[in-house]
């Protein structure tokens, strides 16, 4: 089994707000992140796939294909976007780094034909990241 990681970067804005919480609760739980005007991050995404090395190609995965899927499913949808207002899953789900990792997994998993998705890692900043392994 060989693991291959592809990295990508995107910039996006977001804010944290749960309409079921009172304004005070929203401010207490989410702090500055509750500002409805939003704020932004330079996110770094690492997608790790795993598989056996194909003896003919020497590849675990065709990186060209992985890159196309990544660009189409994730970067086109999220790069330079306001996540709460422009990315459908975040109309109802709070765009935390946890939910971003889950959402990226859900976008990629059905589109990767040969490679098995192992891990999605999203860095919100260099000192904060989330790993999602597709666990329920």
């Amino acid at each position, binding site marked *: 089994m060989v*693991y291959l990681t592809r990295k990508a970067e995107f910039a996006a804005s977001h804010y*944290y707000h*749960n309409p*079921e*919480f009172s304004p005070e609760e929203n401010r207490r*739980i*989410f*702090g500055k992140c509750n500002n409805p005007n939003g704020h932004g991050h330079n996110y770094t995404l690492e997608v790790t796939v795993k598989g056996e090395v194909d003896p003919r190609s020497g590849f675990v995965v065709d990186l060209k294909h992985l890159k196309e899927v990544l660009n189409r499913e994730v970067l086109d949808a999220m790069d330079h976007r306001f996540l709460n207002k422009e990315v459908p899953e975040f109309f109802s*789900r*709070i*765009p*935390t*780094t*946890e*939910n971003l*990792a*889950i959402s990226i997994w859900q976008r990629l998993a059905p589109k990767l034909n040969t490679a098995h998705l192992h*891990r999605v890692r999203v860095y919100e900043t*260099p*000192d*904060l*990241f*989330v*790993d*999602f*392994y597709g*666990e*329920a």
Partner: protein
Amino acid sequence: MKAHLTRRYMFSASHRLHSDAMSEEENKVTYGKCNNPYGHGHNYALEVTVSGPVDESTGMVCNLTDLDAFVEREILERFHLQNLNVVPEFHEAVPTTENLSTSIYDILQRGFRYAHLEKVRIQETVMNSFEYAGGNEIRK
């Protein structure tokens, strides 16, 4: 759904590697420059990984402010800008980064209640790092 959250913290401290169980000569051979009686220091980078179900109402494994407050109070207050050799944890144990990793893991394991502790990772320099998960396998 279960996610793993990792937060990175910086702290600086000095130490001297010296074991009372060894002779002067053996200490010199074992620890080399690190046995210098005056000590030396590092900028340590600590990574704390916690895991748990992502709370649907907050979108979080745990609130980062709770993790930051705990680490600030229980770990950074204790070790940042200190001489590790005089910190209670290292009255007997040698303040290697191995022992620092297990000490910090134990502090978190004992006191942090908001999410499951997965592991700690400490970079002593950019050239070396140490990971400890309380004897559990470390997930990559």
